[in-house]
């Protein structure tokens, strides 16, 4: 499903040339739950941005569901991102001016679903995550855990091929973090493919497989938990 080979990303300024990723090769198959672990500056975020089609890479190849993403224009990449990838962010990234319903609606709008289909999907996801009673609430009226559940509902509403989670519990207290992790594990159990980026080894340990990054390189591949 996600097949990266020899990916390199170089940031170039007038004075400095930084290799954010070097020769990264990674395959994620349908149904996998993979943690990408590494210290700050190891290239986790760059990997996430490239995997999420938010950033280009300089070398290598990236096939998403068999489609080579190199050379796609902005519109094609946006369409692919909308249809195949669900994002979960550390900071939830809900749009503060929109209520819960409208936040979950955002990716569905770009997909072009008719109104009835959008409504069905939104209500289904909100019910799934116990947010039916919060449908008209704004993000500022929700707890951190509730906001992250809305973000997960939003990520799943369009039935993406996989979830990209960036430190999904980083802004949560331990109880809420545990709840969100339980949710992710539940999603994995039901067949959802998840790639989770984290610096926290304890969190990574909850994933059946993990890869370790350091200085932009893969330095370890752990499938012991699987």
């Amino acid at each position: 499903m996600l097949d990266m080979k020899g990916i390199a990303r170089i940031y170039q300024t007038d004075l400095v040339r930084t290799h954010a990723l070097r020769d990264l090769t990674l395959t994620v198959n349908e149904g996998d739950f993979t943690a990408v672990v590494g210290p700050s500056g190891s290239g986790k975020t760059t990997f996430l941005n490239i995997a999420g089609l938010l950033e280009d890479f300089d070398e290598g190849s990236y096939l998403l569901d068999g489609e080579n993403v190199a050379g796609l224009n902005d519109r094609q990449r946006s369409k692919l991102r909308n249809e195949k990838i669900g994002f979960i962010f550390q900071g939830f990234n809900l749009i503060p001016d929109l209520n819960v319903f409208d936040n979950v609606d955002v990716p569905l709008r770009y997909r072009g679903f008719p109104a009835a289909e959008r409504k069905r999907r939104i209500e289904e996801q909100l019910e799934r995550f116990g947010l039916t009673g919060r449908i008209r609430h704004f993000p500022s009226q929700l707890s951190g855990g509730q906001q992250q559940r809305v973000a997960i509902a939003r990520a799943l509403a369009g039935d993406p091929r996989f979830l990209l989670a960036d430190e999904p519990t980083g802004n949560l207290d331990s109880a809420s973090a545990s709840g969100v992790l339980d949710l992710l594990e539940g999603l994995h159990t039901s067949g959802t493919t998840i790639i989770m980026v984290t610096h926290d080894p304890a969190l990574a340990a909850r994933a059946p497989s993990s890869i370790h990054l350091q200085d932009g390189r893969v330095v370890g591949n752990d499938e012991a938990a699987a």
Partner: protein
Amino acid sequence: MIFYYLRLAAISLRRNWGQTTLMILAIGLGIGVCMSIVTINYLMAKDPIPDKSSQLYYVQLDNWDPNRPAESPNEPPDQITWMDHQALMSAAKAFRQTGNASATAIIRKPDDDNFRPFLARIRGNHADFFPMFDVPFLYGTGWTSDAHRDWGADQVVVLSRETNDRLFGGEDSVGREITLGNPTEFSSNLFRVIGVLDEWRPVPRFYDLTSNYFSDPAEIFIPFGLILSQGLSRSGNTNCWKPTGDGLRAFLGSECVWIQYWTELRNHQEKADYMAYLDQYVTEQKEGGRFPRPLNNRLSNVNEWLDHENVVQPEAKMLLAVAVMFLVVCLLNTIGLLLSKFLGKSSEIGVRRALGASRGSLMYQYLVETAMIGFGGGLLGLLLTWLGLESMLAIFGSDASNLMRLDLNMVVAAVALAIASAIGAGLYPTWRACRIDPAAQLKSQ
């Protein structure tokens, strides 16, 4: 998606209402000032009779002083003499032709003692005046072009719609009688109403550009000859280059110009033929000792004549340029405000990009928002335009009322200009916002 974007725009504008108000104020103020001036220029410059302006020709004959032109550098006078008017009308070489001149008279209703007489603007003209200038009739018709009647054998009048409202309460007054009297004398004569005009207010009043051509048309129209035979007081410009002698007969035989003369020539051949006729006429007159200057006859169509008479004053054009610059300054302020607004939405833009929005769709979304601001600015601009025109009307008086009107074209133009300006102003901020790196925004939250 347009309704979705309109809804998002409404939410966004409501949330930042202070910033929204400032932007609407900036655009509204710019549009208000600009459209006030544009309206005046537009009404000054617009073709008053677009369907026929290229077929109606104003006649100038150079009967002026051999030692100096009527107007520099070598312009013939802008009116013609009674003698030439008679000759051209009698020859009737054009498809249609009319001389016309203005006068004033005291109007009374002979069958109504309670009616308060009033001083009316009279226009003496020939029968062709009405069909030539597409003058619409509400009741009756003009007089016939039969030579006897056209020179004023019958004492008939055509009333403007406003005058008919004033005299007869808007009823069909054909066949009713009024009296026209010289303001300086006590005598007056009966005139029979044969026609009432419908609404007719050409702006500028192109058929007579010799005085206040933005005022209303005449209130009463009479056969040309009646101005003289009834002893009405002429009110237009009269220019002479040599002494006239005493009395009306001497005046009519003089080189004084006081009559505007129009012809309708349907094609280039008719125009060429008529020009040849004018040259021949003047050449003949030269043999009789008139027209001492070199041959210098002119035929100008309506728009050429408006240009020649500088209907749009240079000051008005300069004012228009200043108004446009003011609008540009307002838009530059709007650009700054929009830039601040949209860059403040960086995080939302990052999220939307991550969720599948392309740069194009974000551009569309934010341009809808700027168009909405423009619409608000347009409505405010319309209100300010109306206030501006009303203020100018209060300053310049009712003579300028025909220039200080907002017609439907200008209303649509004001709103369209506001929306287009706002979108224009929004292009750069929107483009900048859409270039924001989503990855950086998502991480920074």
